[in-house]
């Protein structure tokens, strides 16, 4: 097991170099240079241009810039936003809990509905429930989620007035953030009604972000379950006279869950970073919206640092998924 972990971690080194290189090189590929790009149509005097180039270090040799970029990353310095003058890492850490909270809720929503639906569909293969749920799953899988979000806003916020349109919390509530998770903070230190507000803000984004993972998990669970149900050991278990519930719940489910857990893990990595569309629609103050705003504002230091941080998170989550996979499935370790 130790050798497996070591080899997986070693494989991350070239990926890390590649990621840092891509994040680094892209602001240097911009037409002109980053300082001109930042100035946009306003333009700037040559002296100011010179000053800014020196300030950001863009006039140094390219390899020197790269090494100082990587060096700084190892020291927790992901650059300073040109627009807000704050450290990129500080902004990231402030906003990350919002994205994490949304992603976790979306994933819970997707697994709690998706896994049972997939199991039932597999066990009752060909039934009305199977066809209906898999039909819905395919629609969910094909959903343009930015449109789905708008539809839900029209219905639940516009017509029914059940939920707010956007944001994380009504402005009338104010309390000190301790964990950064609104649901938890509002419970422990928030005034009366704050938790309800946090919850109602979270419902629609959760559904929207969770839709595609839900569809993927339901489909994956069903096909993994079908595959396992055809195996010899399941037939043996049935032949032994075990109750169907025990065969499905213990013998089949355990093995069917292996690929499903991988799927969940990989989806989680993508969700945390890829909540771009959902956060934009609901004005959710998280990482996705932050990156979009930085791209729109041409704040390329933030884009560079954000890209790096996001890729690091995806990389770490994928590593954890791989290691968990090896724990559940010993066949992987031996290879």
């Amino acid at each position, binding site marked *: 097991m130790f050798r497996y972990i070591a080899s997986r971690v070693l494989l991350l080194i070239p990926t890390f170099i590649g990621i840092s290189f891509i994040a680094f090189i892209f602001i240097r590929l911009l037409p002109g240079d980053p300082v001109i790009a930042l100035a946009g149509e306003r333009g700037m005097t040559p002296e100011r241009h010179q000053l800014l180039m020196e300030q950001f270090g863009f006039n140094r040799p390219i390899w020197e810039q790269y090494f100082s970029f990587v060096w700084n990353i190892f020291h927790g310095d992901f650059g300073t936003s040109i627009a807000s003058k704050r450290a990129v890492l500080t902004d990231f850490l402030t906003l990350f809990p919002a994205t994490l909270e949304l992603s976790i809720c979306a994933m819970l929503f997707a697994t709690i509905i998706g896994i049972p639906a997939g199991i039932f569909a597999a066990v009752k293969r060909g039934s009305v429930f199977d066809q209906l749920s898999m039909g819905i799953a*395919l629609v969910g899988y094909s959903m343009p989620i930015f449109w789905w979000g708008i539809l839900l806003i029209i219905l639940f916020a516009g017509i029914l007035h059940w939920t707010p349109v956007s944001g994380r919390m009504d402005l009338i509530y104010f309390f000190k953030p301790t964990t950064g998770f609104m649901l938890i903070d509002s419970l422990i230190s928030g005034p009366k009604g704050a938790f309800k507000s946090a919850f109602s803000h979270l419902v629609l984004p959760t559904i929207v972000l969770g839709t595609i993972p839900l569809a993927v998990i339901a489909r994956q669970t069903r096909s993994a379950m079908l595959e396992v149900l055809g195996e010899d050991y399941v037939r043996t278990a049935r032949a032994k006279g075990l109750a169907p519930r025990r065969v499905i719940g213990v013998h089949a489910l355990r093995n069917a869950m292996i690929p499903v857990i991988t799927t969940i893990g990989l989806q989680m990595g993508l969700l945390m970073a890829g909540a771009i569309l959902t956060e934009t629609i609901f004005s959710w103050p998280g990482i996705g919206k932050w990156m979009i705003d930085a791209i729109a504002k041409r704040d390329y230091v933030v884009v560079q640092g954000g890209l790096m941080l996001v890729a690091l998170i995806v990389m770490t989550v994928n590593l954890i998924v791989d290691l968990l996979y090896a724990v559940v499935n010993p066949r992987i370790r031996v290879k």
Partner: protein
Amino acid sequence: MTNEVSPPVPLAAPKSAGRMARLSEFWFYFSVNKGAVIGFGVLVFLMLVAIFAPVLAPHAPYQQYREALLTPPSWQTGGNSMFLLGTDAVGRDLLSRLIYGARFSLFIGLIVVTISMVTGVILGVLAGYFRGWVDALIMRIMDIILAFPPLLLALVLVAILGPGLFNAMIAIALVLQPHFARLTRAAVMSEKNREYVVASKLAGAGHLRLMFKTILPNCLAPLIVQGTLSFSNAILEAAALGFLGMGAQPPTPEWGTMLAEAREFILRAWWVVTFPGLAILITVLAINLVGDGLRDALDPKLKRS
């Protein structure tokens, strides 16, 4: 050259008959899946709509009817029979724009899949065939691309290249391409040591012939399925980029861009938001249905059971 002469006529006939038989066998398995047949029908319909857009569209897609801004669909009160699905905020006919939009979406899907499939397959074949450092290099690069969330990477690429439909297509193709490379590599690796490949090698076939004529045709099934998946993904991502203002630029009647333009009217005029999204959903759903059918028909493991 000598062994490349075209076969004599009598031999050609059974060959084409064999192809027909294979095609009808494929259709037999494909048509078992009713959803796939429906999806295929919808897809053909959409293609016809895209091709004959100038004939079908009642109005020009950019024509603004200044006296009919935000007209509701014709069946609603205040609707106008001239505009079946209503008009948008500057008085353009929604139906006509949707019809023209089909052209963009299908075109985007086609181009993106072609680019990503061709590059991905070439890289995958090289990696799987040569192994060693070629494999390591190519696969590490794929890992790096896959470490970024696809939409985010596409967004950043478009930010570098400049917003627009063409750049969006390149960015999406780049993001989707590692899937083809990985899939091809795995398939090539499992085929490489089969007897027919060894036989062909002993017969003196060169690397290129072995890679692309001997091995690749036997790896096509999973690639076709991945191709359909990427086709629908490309349409979704392009629409998402358009929605975020980084894809096709207004006034292009691209469905995602239309949604972005309609965002501020969501609570006043439901039709400007509903129909473009519905068009995206139907198109993507049809392609995914076909993809499921293809998977069932081409996967030998499922065929046997």
